[in-house]
């Protein structure tokens, strides 16, 4: 890490116009995150179009603000109305909701924002120290290693998403196939474009994303007409008490470190981090049996882990160009729109940008803490927004967002098409995130595979004889097989329980 560059990064971020973007991003992120049904991925996807026209510093600051804010925001609805605003907050509600039932919502929320801040800030710190080191290793990667890395990233996301590995693999391969639409990266020959100029660069990323993660969700959203939520709790406490902090600080630190490392594994997202952090806190607690009944450490563990995960997920994104989860995949798309390709080369050519990202990440967490604590009453009102008015607005934002990037109605059709596809995929248990990652990793996999084969004169064994690529490909196979085995085991147990229930 270089301290002088980090200082320069802070100087870049601590300008009024950049700070303003952080504030807007964090506020927007918390709102999106706290609304059940709007995931962080969807939030970032919908808000990315608002950053197109901005200079890189401002747009990155805003996006990182949204990212950090959304992960924290999920806990608000988890605590108040027992619905996680984002999947990442699913572990938070275990103890958060019982606390709020006892009338201690303020206590839970203030701990949540505090733990989120410590977690997120630690994650950002670890990222700042670690990712330059990783990028140094990655700079030595050749085409075979990059190919293996892409496959590894895909395999992980397939193994963590959805109930069926087979369908996950299918979605992954389908996504890779989609990524071959457009000009061939090596020869420039247009493939599968049906003569459409609009398809020369492949299906545009942001519209595809909006279709898969926003439109599909709201097509489903209009199926049921929900009544407005009610929040009865009065929130008077903005900051956690010293006694609570004393009780939780160990848990928070442990969860922060755990969360960062889980986040740094490509494919493992903040929902997993939160559960690991939670169960670790439960395991090492003096009173594990009380977890789930409203223990403040439960909230602290889950929230610090899932926010630490944001920093962790940025590590592979920045240093390897492989996103750690669906949200960072969207961020990668946003980087690319700004003309920057994350990866080791970014560290060589655009050090200033990298360190601005580090600084922005830390500043975003501080801003999140301030806005989250001060605005908690406002955000708890946001949850009660009438969904039957909100959903139409999301429809509109989806269309406008798809249109805005290239001023193209064609892109809007792309979004609608993927919206329909995503709707049916969701209905029939096909996960969508492998498609998203495949779209990003596809070109990386293909061009490096072909470059590797050019180096080896067509001998495929080049992929299996270099140590790093062997390890990565091996890990890819292991992760797929192990999750397949795990899935079989779960199914067996479910079948057993079912037959036992039938006998009773």
């Amino acid at each position, binding site marked *: 890490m270089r301290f002088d560059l980090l200082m320069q990064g802070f100087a870049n971020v601590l300008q009024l116009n950049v700070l303003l973007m952080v504030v807007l991003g964090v506020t927007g992120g918390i709102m999106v995150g706290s609304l059940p049904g709007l995931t962080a991925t969807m939030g970032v996807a919908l808000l990315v*179009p*608002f*950053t*197109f*026209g*901005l200079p890189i510093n401002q747009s990155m600051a805003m996006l990182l603000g949204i990212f950090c804010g959304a992960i924290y925001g999920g806990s608000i609805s988890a605590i108040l109305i027992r619905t996680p605003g984002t999947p990442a907050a699913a572990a938070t509600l275990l103890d958060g909701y019982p606390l709020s039932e006892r009338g201690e919502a303020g206590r839970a929320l203030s701990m949540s924002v505090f733990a989120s801040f410590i977690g997120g800030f630690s994650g950002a710190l670890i990222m700042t120290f670690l990712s330059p080191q990783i990028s140094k290793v990655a700079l030595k990667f050749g085409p075979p290693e990059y190919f293996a890395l892409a496959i590894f990233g895909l395999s992980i996301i397939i193994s963590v998403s959805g109930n*069926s590995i*087979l*369908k996950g*693999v*299918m979605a992954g*391969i*389908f996504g*890779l*196939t989609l990524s*071959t639409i457009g000009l*061939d990266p*090596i*020869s420039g*020959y247009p*493939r*599968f474009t049906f003569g459409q100029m609009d398809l020369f660069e492949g299906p545009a990323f942001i519209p595809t994303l909006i279709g898969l993660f926003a439109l599909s969700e*709201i*097509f*489903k959203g*209009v*199926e*049921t*007409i929900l009544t407005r939520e009610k929040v009865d709790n009065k929130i008077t406490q903005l900051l956690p008490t010293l006694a609570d902090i004393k009780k939780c600080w160990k848990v928070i630190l442990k969860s922060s470190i755990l969360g960062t490392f889980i986040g740094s594994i490509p494919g493992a997202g903040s929902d997993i981090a939160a559960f690991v952090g939670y169960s670790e806190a439960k395991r090492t607690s003096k009173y594990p049996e009380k977890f789930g009944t409203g223990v403040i450490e439960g909230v602290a563990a889950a929230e610090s882990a899932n926010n630490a995960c944001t920093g962790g997920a940025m590590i592979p994104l920045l240093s390897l160009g492989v996103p750690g989860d669906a949200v960072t995949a969207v961020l990668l798309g946003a980087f690319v729109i700004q003309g920057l390709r994350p990866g080791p080369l970014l560290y060589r050519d655009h050090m200033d940008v990298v360190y601005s990202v580090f600084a922005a990440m830390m500043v975003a967490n501080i801003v999140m803490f301030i806005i989250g604590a001060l605005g908690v009453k406002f955000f708890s009102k946001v949850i009660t927004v009438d969904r*039957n*008015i909100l*959903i*139409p*607005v999301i*429809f*509109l*934002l989806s*269309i*406008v967002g798809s*249109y*805005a990037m290239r*001023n193209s*109605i064609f892109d*809007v*059709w792309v979004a*609608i098409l993927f*919206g*329909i596809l995503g*709707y049916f995929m969701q*209905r*029939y*248990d*096909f996960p969508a995130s492998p498609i998203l990652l495949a779209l990003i990793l596809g070109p990386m*996999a*293909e061009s490096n*595979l*072909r470059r590797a*084969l*050019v180096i080896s004169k*067509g001998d495929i064994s080049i992929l299996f004889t270099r140590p790093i690529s062997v390890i990565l490909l091996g890990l890819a196979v292991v992760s797929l097989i192990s999750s397949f085995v795990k899935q079989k085991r779960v199914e067996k147990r479910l079948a057993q329980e079912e037959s036992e229930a039938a006998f009773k």
Partner: protein
Amino acid sequence: MRKADIIGGLMGVFISAFVFYESSKFPEDIVMKIGPSYFPRILAMGLLLVSGILILQAYMGKSKKPAEKFDIKEPGIQRAGIALLSTIVYCMILDKVGFIPSSILYLVFLMYLLEKRNYVKMTMISTAVVVGIYIIFKTILNITLPSGFFG
């Protein structure tokens, strides 16, 4: 789920067949033998294999839990369908009518679809949202939305 799995699998088979057919028209790289069709064909083979397994599993009755049936008569599904149709219509008139009027119409219609009936409130919220988005995009983000005949 069984039927859905078979349909999903068949779509996979279809896509892979299409990729094979299309890629046969790609120019071959004479020297390296690894041209534009190399990667798509590997993928098509993979897709064919996975789709085959999916269909086979469904055929042998090994599909996962049955999904909710896709019943076109169900009001929820119909609402999703109408939302889709109105979105398509909205996109078709967007260029001609212009962003502001068509978007307000679109929002009010969707709210109506979601059983809101307070027209004054619906129109006011829609107008505020649409004008807000328009201003943010145009003045702050320098992105022009179709202005249509209202210019």
